[in-house]
């Protein structure tokens, strides 16, 4: 079994589910012959035809809206929006319809759709191409927000997102699309949604993150180890709904927590995690919760991209602060 990248794993998951379920359709801009701007849908149209793999006109609100119509009729649309910075004109459809079709109709209609969106900075992309605004979606009742951080989890979580009976925003960390390779078996085994994954066990401090930042977080844990600090690493994976129990259990053990995300700080998902820790796990904390995040600024153009993004050093520093007085 060859090792594959995260974007290959997305492709493999799409291939698998399209073959397994004739109701799955894939749509978006340039996703057909061109295979998507990141090649996530490469080869799908050739294999499954232009009716099940459809190039849409350039219209994001339409892409989301027609996916809702398809889903209500029993198809399982997997739509791609090219970059998170362009999802905003589809937000009306996501919030006003996808998220609430089941609720509005008391279950008469439902919306089993997946909206795949590459997101995040770090690839020297043009303006509007490097956003990390996942918290916007995490605020919305009725949807799931799922973010893989490795080829294995991209494959397994994408399968479960497609099979899920409710709408899923599937955010793909494009900085690590091709950064690491893993062996991923094309066995159709899905991974569970709505749960965090403990990637590394430790006893001194809990590092919580998701998406591309898992990469830096794991490196920080490694370096902390060398400095004699045992860090537990949690990949949240489904940021909505949030599995706070796994995080609470970990913090109960370590007494310290650092939450890392690329997104701006204010009302980022770290704020929600910290609030829930304060509500339910305050007494197990030995030190204040630390957040390592992007700044509350516009995502800079790529000259300053590295200065914006949290890095291994800032994660290490935050972890050490939690250990300082305790």
């Amino acid at each position, binding site marked *: 079994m060859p090792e594959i990248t995260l974007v290959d794993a997305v492709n493999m998951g799409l291939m698998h589910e399209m073959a397994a379920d004739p109701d799955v*359709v894939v749509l978006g801009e340039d996703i057909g012959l061109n295979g998507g701007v990141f090649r996530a849908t490469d080869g799908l149209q050739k294999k499954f035809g232009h*009716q*099940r793999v*459809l190039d*849409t*006109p350039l*219209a994001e*609100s*339409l892409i*989301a*809206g*027609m*996916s*809702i*119509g*398809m*889903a*209500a*009729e*029993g*198809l399982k*649309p997997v739509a791609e929006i090219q970059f998170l910075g362009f999802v905003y*004109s589809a937000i*009306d*459809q996501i919030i*006003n*319809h996808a998220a609430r079709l*089941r*609720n*509005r*109709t*008391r*279950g*008469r*209609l*439902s919306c089993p759709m997946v909206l795949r969106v590459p997101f995040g900075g770090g690839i020297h992309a043009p303006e509007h191409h490097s956003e990390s605004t996942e918290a916007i979606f995490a605020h919305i*009742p*009725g949807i*799931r927000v799922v973010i893989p951080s490795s080829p294995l989890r991209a494959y397994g979580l994408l399968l479960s997102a497609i099979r899920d*009976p*409710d709408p899923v925003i599937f955010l793909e960390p494009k900085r690590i699309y091709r950064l690491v390779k893993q062996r991923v078996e094309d066995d159709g085994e899905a991974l569970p949604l*709505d749960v965090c994954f403990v990637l590394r066990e430790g006893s001194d401090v809990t590092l919580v993150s998701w998406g591309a930042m898992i990469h830096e977080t794991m490196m920080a844990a490694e370096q902390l180890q060398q400095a004699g600090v045992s860090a537990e690493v949690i990949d949240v994976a489904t940021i909505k*709904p*949030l*599995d*706070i*129990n796994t995080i609470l259990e970990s913090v109960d053990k370590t007494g310290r927590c650092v939450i890392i995300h690329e997104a701006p700080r204010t009302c980022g998902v770290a704020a929600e995690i910290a609030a829930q820790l304060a509500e339910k796990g305050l007494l197990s904390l030995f030190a204040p919760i630390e957040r390592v995040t992007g700044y509350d600024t516009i995502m800079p153009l790529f000259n300053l991209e590295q200065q914006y993004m949290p890095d291994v050093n800032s994660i290490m520093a935050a972890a050490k602060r939690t250990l300082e007085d305790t």
Partner: protein
Amino acid sequence: MNQTNKSPLQQTAPPLYQVNKPYVTASFEIKYHQIIDADGAVVGPIPDFARQPEQLIKLYQAMYLTRQFDHKAILLQRRGQLGTYASSLGQEAIGTAIGYTMQADDVLLPAYREYAAQFLRGVSMTEILLYWGGNEQGMNFQAQKHDFPINVPIASQTSHAVGVAYAMQLRQQARVAVCVLGDGATSKGDFYEAINAAGNWKLPVVFVINNNHWAISLPRQKQSHAKTLAQKAIAAGISGEQVDGNDVIAMQFRLDKALNKARNGHGPSVIEALSYRLGDHTTADDATRYRSKDELEQNWKYEPLSRLHHYLTNMGYWSKHHDQQLEKNTQHLVESAVQEYLNTPAQAPESMFDYLYQSLPESLQEQRQSVIQRHQGHA
């Protein structure tokens, strides 16, 4: 994809050096259809279905029921027994023709003034009252499983119709999606995105514009400088036409053509139904702030019920006796729907959690419990 080896430029125009004056590369015309005028006089060819009195009477009854329902709903709202309500006064022919023409397994994607269509498709009056009475069960149609519920975010239903029609086409079903929107809605990008995409794929979808000449306080002529709204279809490469939306016979006839065309794989259409909003925008609106009494009075002349009534009477299909009978029957139907609505208990508080997802995520159980506890004893 190109059928010829010519460059795209050459396909639409001769080589540039041959052009010594501009010439027409595209042109269009928009037709207006009417069969029965405001006085009930026949001005167009009577279609076959309209030669059968019982069919016309069915249309009249549906319009009449809708009008009585509307009237009742407004009364309920005034009495504090219903929330804000959007009436379809004056536009009953549009919904009636839609409901009458569609087949059972087609899909209706309405805005919020298509009660006539919904009733004909099995949505109950009680359900519509429940909806405006603040109860989501009003969208859980018991006898209509596929239709979309009322759509409030203007024009957003148009792209759902594209997806519904795409699913029908993919599965090679002989079904059609019918999407209704207002004149105001035609200014939204969603509408352009939807008709453009529908044209691309030749989808089985019909967009019906209820041009009631107002979008709350904005009159039609300030909504767009386009002479007709139907012509917007031309830009999307699909057919568009205007129909007298208060002439239920013309509406049925043109809709039937459009639906057949869609059903037979010949693609989408836009029908601009010309009508007039005789009521306030909703019960929360006061149209006297922006609309003259004169204009309103003028437009009462064109309303759809009296003209069909004239026609039916002229043809000897209808008499005073029928009027009395219909009034009695309708009153009974509306009253029993109102009673059923008023007797429907509010949903349990925890119902706000129970349809969020197919099964409630673990993390929401605590909130669900807390709403139950908070309201224990209140019932």
